[in-house]
């Protein structure tokens, strides 16, 4: 299973990559914003997306809106955000996100999100 990590923070991409390794998901590809994420989807076969909300150029909600009109709309998306505002969570869910993890999070939070978004993973 290949996971696309979309986050503008290099440290957060490292942390997510490290946690994914711990749940036996070492195959990752990374993007620094929504536009780079869409470009990565055009290049790579991806099975799961970990998506940040606050990013320059194209943020998480804009990415979800764009994703709906693409062939990749059925790829499960886990939103990973510092923003714990419930309105934003609902909006992400209404645009197709399967699960929402609030930063900072530990491996238990990732496992819980994976159990919803990709039950066969981890």
């Amino acid at each position, binding site marked *: 299973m290949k996971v696309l990590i979309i986050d*503008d*923070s*290099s*440290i*957060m991409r*490292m*942390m997510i990559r*490290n946690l994914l390794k711990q749940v036996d998901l070492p195959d990752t590809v990374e993007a620094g914003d929504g536009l780079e994420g869409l470009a990565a989807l055009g290049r790579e076969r991806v099975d799961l997306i970990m998506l940040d909300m*606050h*990013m*320059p150029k194209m943020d998480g909600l804009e990415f979800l809106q764009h994703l709906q009109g693409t062939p990749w709309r059925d790829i499960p998306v886990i939103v990973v*955000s*510092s*923003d*714990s*505002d*419930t*309105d934003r969570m609902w909006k992400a869910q209404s645009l197709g996100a399967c699960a929402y993890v*609030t*930063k*900072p999070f*530990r491996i238990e939070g990732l496992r819980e999100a994976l159990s919803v978004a990709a039950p066969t993973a981890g």
Partner: protein
Amino acid sequence: MSTTSPLVFLVAEQGQDWPARFLDAASGSYTVTRVPLSEVHTCGHTHNGARGVVVCHDASLSPDLGDSLRHVRACVHYADLPVIAVAPSPSASMRARMMAAGASDVYDADSTEPEQVLRAVDNRCDIEPVMAELHDSLLMPFVEAATHTIEEMAGSSVSLHSVYQKRGYRIFGDYSVMVNLSADSEGTLVLSFPSETGSAIAARILEPLGADLTEELLQSTLGEIGNIVTGSAKGRLANTNYRFAMSTPTVVSGHNHEVRYQPGLPCLVASFTGELGDFALQLCMALPGIAHGGES
């Protein structure tokens, strides 16, 4: 009615003439606590509650007053306290070095009376208690968010040292993470770290990732901390009058840089202490229903 003499710290070695005259001038009107320059780095939190600090320079004892002033700034937890440097015949370059290191002003010991310096401390003091209506409802959610974020990410305990309110712009620290806040409440959140604290926190977070601490990773880590603190506070304030949208963080580095807020707005400050060092959170917001006297 009982009165308390304002507290002033005097940082000076024994045997100097000017500090002795300063103590005489302050006697009866001020409570002065004297600390030797050579021991200022051990002062810890003892400056808490002071109205200002007067640092007397003696070139024969401490050739690098800039370093001493940095220690003083750390000891006062980067509060915008007036720190007045007094040195014999300071040259223009020496004045510039002292100001860059955190001095509020530099006076010539050969031509300045102690009373003049005491007036400067009084005039420059910019610290007030946080308005009661803002303490619990606005500042504490940010304090809880900052404490939780550092503890979760770095696995290190953090405790609140002090809170106060100021109007000054100057921020004392080596790295500042700024996040713009908008919507019902407009403002800026700034997290300020001395380089030692920033590096220690980033190194702790990077350790399990097997990554070496580089300047880029340090700034990325501090930026993400600012992002998470703001997001966490946003959730805590979602159902209040203080709800806001947040920008992506910007990290500014450089010793004692200046960050300009919207003029006239009160700036709420919380300073923290912990095993990895001290840091401060500064929140400047235009607040619905709260009057503020400055221009907008």
